[in-house]
């Protein structure tokens, strides 16, 4: 765990001093963590895994459990390794920027979230980290938050991936309910039960929604190119090497538990294949190099998804190898585009040219990465591509379809690689070449290491093959995979397909101008407007909110009160209905004439207050009501209450009478015109209240508190009037609070009355 916390400590050290050690601290921490993970490679290469766990919310089956197997280790190495290079690059890229510390801290937080995601064994824990990557990526995409555009695109990325995250959570809970465990390492044992369960389709849909939104699969792909509003180092890290692969990781992690079924195979193959081909076409359409790379990332994610659906050892090994290949060349190219942007002043393909001489060191790096991307031998990309073709021929669902998708996507990758590596450097000199120069070492180091890695591992593929790819494929297939990794396989079908790919790629590259014009025309006709769906949902939600605000929040007090009362009455009636309208069981006791008179007077007072048009009569009626109620209190032993009631009623009559002299008459007098709707609501409320009271009276009274007061008043508080003792002794603090309320009300009243003059003067 010390390995994992190292970057955090380093980030905390990166005080806003700008000292080199502080700026490069996070990068060093991340590199240390990477070395720590690398030390675990021998263990993993031996097909074993490491699991540590602490209890967390044991009642819900949520543990702080972490698992390091081949799959987790590959991701951990990529996250920390590329993380170190990107952090170093960012420290140089943003040198002197006032938000450098903010960027570094966010990047490190993201790195930790991502690490947690791939290392977590408990699915709920994984989900927590999953959401943390969503939140940190939101902050990183919106890094230039002064720009409305960056904010909108950050919000788009957040909404799309967080919506998918919710689906994923539901899927995880269903998995837990069916499998009886939330530990990913225990799921393969429950795979048969999961796949046979009637809930399996629901689980599949929910989990795939989470994975597809996160990994930008069609039709959720649009947020990823838009997320290029982020600074280039962020895009290189989040949107090529790590975060977008979280969905791929999820699919890989759940392959043993959910994979291999017909729906799984077909969904992954079709969605992945369509995404790959569409994205490579879109990539050709772009003129901004960063957007081109963004679309090729979508293409790579589609390819990975397609091969994860393959369910054969070769297809899975191909996916894992391509994952590594892609992380190396894509991060290198992204970082290189950042260098071009910074040092040549543009990312537009048409404005760049003739940079091979002034930026030759950058060109070497780009060329190496592009060769790996295009899949030329002896680069790792070549091995990845050969494996892909071998895997495509072995997939369970439809080999021919997968091969077609793969060849089409790869051919366009060759064209894109040429576009990135040839045109800006060897093309005709443009104005940008005049002032272009080499980047600082820290910016060059990252892409250089990554691009060289593609070459070194291509020459010695066993370094990654036996050590990482085979154990990972074994985790997914649930059986030991021992594939040989060689550069030269002899003349076979994959080699033929590779040659076909190169030829097609070169043709596409040469015809690029015409293709781009054609695509632009298609776009003008509103083709491929997948984003409009998102916009539609967003606009619809806003319209719904505006509509319901207009309907419910009219700004009219009478309507607010009508809503409130209606809901209250409805709740009361619902409660009564559920209680079976329990009526008081005791028979109606005889009512003496005087009691009946008081009840009648009270009711008369209430009704008179409603119907009268005279304010004076209304006040008198209120006084009548209050006195009648006081009399009822007297009959039933509440002497103190009755006294207070009489006192207060008198006060109210006096005060209201005085105040009403200053208030207008009851005009417009409603007269005898009855508001029938209001009367209905009022009756519904009143009758429900009466029925609720009778229902309460039908229950047994719990006299424990009363008994206590009766026993304790004389013996403990030395008072013989129990009510008084309660108020001034047992519940004295409540009485103090009551006094405070009255005082505050009085102060408020005084303040309102005395500000009158000032207000009048001010309004003049």
């Amino acid at each position, binding site marked *: 765990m010390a390995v994992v916390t190292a970057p955090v400590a380093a980030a905390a050290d990166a005080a806003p001093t700008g000292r080199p050690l502080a700026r490069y601290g996070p990068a060093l921490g991340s590199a240390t963590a990477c070395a720590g993970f690398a030390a675990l490679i021998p263990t993993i290469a031996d097909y074993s895994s490491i699991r540590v766990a602490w209890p967390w919310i044991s009642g819900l089956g949520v543990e702080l459990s972490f698992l390091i197997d081949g799959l987790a280790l590959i991701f951990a190495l990529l996250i920390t390794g590329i993380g170190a290079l990107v952090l170093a690059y960012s420290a140089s890229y943003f040198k002197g920027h006032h938000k450098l510390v903010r960027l570094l801290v966010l990047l490190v937080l993201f790195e930790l979230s991502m690490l947690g995601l791939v290392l977590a064994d408990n699915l709920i824990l994984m989900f927590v980290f999953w959401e943390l990557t969503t939140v940190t990526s939101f902050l990183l995409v919106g890094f230039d938050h002064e720009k409305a555009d960056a904010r909108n695109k950050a919000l788009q990325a957040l909404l799309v991936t967080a919506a998918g995250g919710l689906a994923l959570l539901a899927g995880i809970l269903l998995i837990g309910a069916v499998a009886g465990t939330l530990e990913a390492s225990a799921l393969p044992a429950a795979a048969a039960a999961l796949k046979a369960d009637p809930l399996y389709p629901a689980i599949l849909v929910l989990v795939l929604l989470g994975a597809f939104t996160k990994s930008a699969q069609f039709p959720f792909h649009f947020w990823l190119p838009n997320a290029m509003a982020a600074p280039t180092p962020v895009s290189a890290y989040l949107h090529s090497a790590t975060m977008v692969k979280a969905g791929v990781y999820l699919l890989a992690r759940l392959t043993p538990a959910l994979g291999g079924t017909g729906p799984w195979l077909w969904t992954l193959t079709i969605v992945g294949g369509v995404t790959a081909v569409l994205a490579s076409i879109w990539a050709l359409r772009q003129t901004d190099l960063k957007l081109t790379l963004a679309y090729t990332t979508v293409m790579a994610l589609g390819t990975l998804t397609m091969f994860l659906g393959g369910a054969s050892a070769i297809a899975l090994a191909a996916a894992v190898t391509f994952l590594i290949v892609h992380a190396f060349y894509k991060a290198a190219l992204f970082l290189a585009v950042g260098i071009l942007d910074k040092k040549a002043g543009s990312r537009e393909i048409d404005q760049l040219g003739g940079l091979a001489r002034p930026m030759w060191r950058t060109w070497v790096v780009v060329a190496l990465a592009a060769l790996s991307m295009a899949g030329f031998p002896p680069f790792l990309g070549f091995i990845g591509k050969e494996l892909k073709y071998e895997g495509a021929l072995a997939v369970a669902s439809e080999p021919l379809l997968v091969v077609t998708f793969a060849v089409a996507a790869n051919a366009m990758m060759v064209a894109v690689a040429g576009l990135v590596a040839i045109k800006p450097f060897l093309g005709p000199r443009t104005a940008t070449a005049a002032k272009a120069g080499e980047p600082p070492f820290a910016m060059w180091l990252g892409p250089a290491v990554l691009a060289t890695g593609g070459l070194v591992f291509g020459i010695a593929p066993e370094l990654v093959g036996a050590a990482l790819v085979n154990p990972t494929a074994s985790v997914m297939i649930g059986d030991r995979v021992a594939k040989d990794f060689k550069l030269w396989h002899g003349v076979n079908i994959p080699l033929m397909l590779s040659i076909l790919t190169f030829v097609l790629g070169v043709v596409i590259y040469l015809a690029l101008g015409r293709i781009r014009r054609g695509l632009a025309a298609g776009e003008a006709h509103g083709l491929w407007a997948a984003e409009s769906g998102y916009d539609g949902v967003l606009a619809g939600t806003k319209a719904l909110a505006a509509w319901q605000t207009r309907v419910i929040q009219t*700004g009219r*007090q*009478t309507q607010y*009160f*009508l809503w409130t*009362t209606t809901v209250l009455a409805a709740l009361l009636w619902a409660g009564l209905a559920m209680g079976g309208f329990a009526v*008081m069981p005791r028979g109606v006791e005889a*009512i003496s004439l005087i009691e009946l008179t008081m*009840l009648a007077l009270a*009711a008369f007072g*209430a*009704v008179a*207050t*409603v119907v009268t048009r005279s304010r004076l009569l*209304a006040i008198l009626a*209120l006084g009548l009501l209050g006195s009648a*109620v006081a009399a009822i*209190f007297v*009959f*039933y*032993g*509440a002497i*103190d*209450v009755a006294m*207070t009631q009489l006192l*207060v009623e008198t006060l109210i009559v006096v005060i*209201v009478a005085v105040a009403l002299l*200053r*208030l*207008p008459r009851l005009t417009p007098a409603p007269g005898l015109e009855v*508001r029938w709707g*209001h009367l209905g609501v*009022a*009756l519904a*409320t009143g*009758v429900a209240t*009466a*029925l609720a*009271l*009778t229902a309460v*009276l039908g229950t047994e009274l719990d006299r424990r*508190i*009363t008994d206590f007061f*009766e026993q304790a*008043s004389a*013996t403990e508080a030395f008072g*013989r*009037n*129990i*009510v008084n003792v309660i*108020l001034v002794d047992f*519940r004295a603090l409540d*009485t103090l609070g*009551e006094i405070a309320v*009255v005082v505050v*009300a*009085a102060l408020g*009243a005084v303040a*309102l009355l005395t500000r*009158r003059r000032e207000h009048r003067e001010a309004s003049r």
Partner: protein
Amino acid sequence: MELALAVLVGVLTTCAVYLMLSGNMVRFIFALALLSNAVNLVIFAAGRLTYAAPPLIADGAKAPADTVANALPQALILTAIVIGFGLLAFTLVLVHRAHQTLGTVEADDMRVAEPASDDDEAR
């Protein structure tokens, strides 16, 4: 008697709600007084009624000898009456002040916090 009290509570509540829905703030104040009486009666009845036996302890006795009225709801109502009075007085002043400033006691004409939009005017 309990059942009769429940009926009275129903009448008071109905009258109070009907008055409050009128939108006239003066009537609203009357309604507030009605409603607090209704609430007090609910608390009183819910504690059950005991005829003419105040909760007092005779000299020399440690506890009431016979069944006496429930003291607990009485204490609650005492507090409620006083607080209800404070609320009523404050509301009264508030209405008075609103009338001075806005020139109306009709709640629907008080649109300072939530100004009427154009389509409201059209209605």
